[in-house]
């Protein structure tokens, strides 16, 4: 187990180093001396020495200085990261609450009408781009019905976002529908796998009711991949956040990244790219480690 963890962490570190190299290489290419601003006037010369002094600055929290906002990238990050966490966290939670029962329902009624209808619906959500979904939701619920706001919450901070439920509903719904589509395909097949296991047959044989079998045996065991699923879908969810935040004028990381890209504010684009890269690597590490911790079979096999 320890050896497996050590190997996995080491691998993640290597990937992280390559991510920083990619961002650094791009940083040396962009106009406007974004790198020079981080390194200062007395920086070393040469690719690698400059890389290490840049890495040193980054590890000390210096991601550069935004040309557009006239403030450090880290300040901008501190303001927008909690907002994005609030948005994506709520969306993932909602997605799980919907996708788990839907996956179970599909597995129990495999290849029946319910299954086909739900599959078609999730495929539709999967194929619908987030910006189309978002604009249609605005059109229906904000413009026609006037139930919810068409703009995301504007109050600052994590608490400011999650308390403004009226404005939060549509952005979260957009992101959640996208995430449900990502999740339900896996949850369906994972529940189908669980249903075919020996322990399910044993549970039925000893006279457990269908409800008990589903809740105690199938559900519990098909929840395992959820950890992996969340960890591995971090990139899609973050990419979705870029679009959703720009539609709903919600000043989180995705919005700032888009705004910076549109206005050629390279220090912000690269700084945020780096942070997102770290988030994704952490997500996939969490997925593997979490799975190993939860599932004894993986734990012992990895020894």
């Amino acid at each position, binding site marked *: 187990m320890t050896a497996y963890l050590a190997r996995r962490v080491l*691998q993640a570190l*290597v*990937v*992280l180093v*390559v*991510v920083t*190299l*990619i961002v650094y290489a*791009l940083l040396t*290419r*962009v106009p406007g001396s974004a790198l020079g601003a981080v390194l200062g006037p007395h920086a070393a010369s040469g690719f690698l020495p400059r890389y290490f002094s840049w890495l040193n600055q980054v590890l000390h929290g210096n991601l550069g200085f935004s040309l557009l906002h006239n403030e450090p990238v880290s300040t901008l990050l501190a303001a927008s990261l909690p907002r994005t966490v609030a948005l994506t966290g709520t969306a993932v939670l909602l997605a799980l609450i919907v996708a788990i029962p839907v996956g179970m329902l599909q597995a129990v009624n495999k290849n029946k009408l319910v299954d086909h209808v739900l599959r078609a619906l999730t*495929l*539709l959500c*999967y*194929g*619908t*781009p*987030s*910006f*189309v979904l978002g*604009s*249609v939701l*605005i*059109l229906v619920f904000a*413009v*026609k019905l006037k139930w919810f706001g*068409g703009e995301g919450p504007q109050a600052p901070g994590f608490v400011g976002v999650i308390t403004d439920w009226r404005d939060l509903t549509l952005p979260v719904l957009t992101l959640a529908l996208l995430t449900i589509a*990502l999740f339900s*395909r*896996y949850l369906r097949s994972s529940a189908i796998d669980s249903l075919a296991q020996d322990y399910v047959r044993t549970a039925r044989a000893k006279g457990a009711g269908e409800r008990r079998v589903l809740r105690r045996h199938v559900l519990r065991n098909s929840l395992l991949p959820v950890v992996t699923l969340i960890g*591995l*879908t971090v*990139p*899609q969810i*973050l*990419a979705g956040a*870029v*679009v959703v935040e*720009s*539609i709903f004028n919600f000043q989180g990381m995705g919005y700032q*990244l*888009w705004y*910076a*890209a*549109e206005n*050629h504010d*390279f220090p912000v*684009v*690269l700084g*945020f*790219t780096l942070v*997102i*890269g770290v988030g*994704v*690597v952490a997500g*996939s590490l969490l997925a593997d480690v979490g799975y190993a911790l939860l599932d004894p079979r993986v734990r012992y096999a990895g020894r």
Partner: protein
Amino acid sequence: MTARDVESGPGGGPARGSKGRHAGPASGPFLAPARADGAEPAGGTGAPRGRRPSRVARLPGQLRAVISASPLGCLAGLILVGVAVFCFGGPLVYHPDLVHVHLALGNLSPRAGHLLGTDPDGLDELGLLMAGGQISLEVGVAAGVLAAVLGSLWGAVAGYLGGAADAIMMRVVDAGIAIPTLVLLLLVVSVFRPTTWVLMLAIAATSWLGTARLVRAEALTLRTRDYVQAVRAMGGTGSRVVLRHIAPNALGTITVNVSFQIANAILVLATLSFLNLGVQSPGSDWGDMIASGMQEIYNGYWWQIVPAGVAICLVVVAFTMLGDALRDRIGADD
């Protein structure tokens, strides 16, 4: 993209590609004429074929066989052909003025003469839908195919070489996947002015990573096969093994992946255009149309958003369904 890749990945069937090549829906019909030319067909399989008089008469039967084998795949194919005819054939019969701005005709709701209404500049939405579809389809298909080719080569080489080279090449892929495609693309198009060519290359250059993983997994099993060993023993070079033996045998996996890659490329292009970082004016694709519709959204001008949105969904879902159907065909072999 990762989700789609994992789904169609090694779980979907590593090492099936070699058999998959001969397992397409058309394999029966293709074999039939060759036998009919030769001597009297022998055995049980030959008997039903002997009764059929000509290829033309057999066609409906074949069609029915293909349709019943994968109804969704056929539906997807029909949708795609329909959309292509609409986008490329439509402008031949329907040519509204898409050049001159008529502010007096702006934001008209659907009516005779403007079946899908007009945009804020008074341009006909139906005409824009056709013209925009051309850009979406051209760039999407080109970028998707290019991404699949790039990824296949990278993965095949990494899987064939193995060892340290494989480790380094795959860590590069891991790092690339750690940065979401859209984020990488935002970076690229903020540095370079996004012309159609830049967009195509940029989308391909940022989305080949998933394919590389898939094909590498396939190449790892293929390179231990006897025929690869035989080529090596006869003095075949590494590039010959990769290009002539590993890549063609991974063709099943690659074909499925091309379909998913195209769906993804169309989606990504539309997203970029929606964010004002894709196709630049005066050119406009489906994403651009929705972006300009968003400016008037609080007036409830649904016709500026819904048709382009439906078009994107239709094409993306159709390519995804096609990929699924292809995978089922190839996976069903064993």
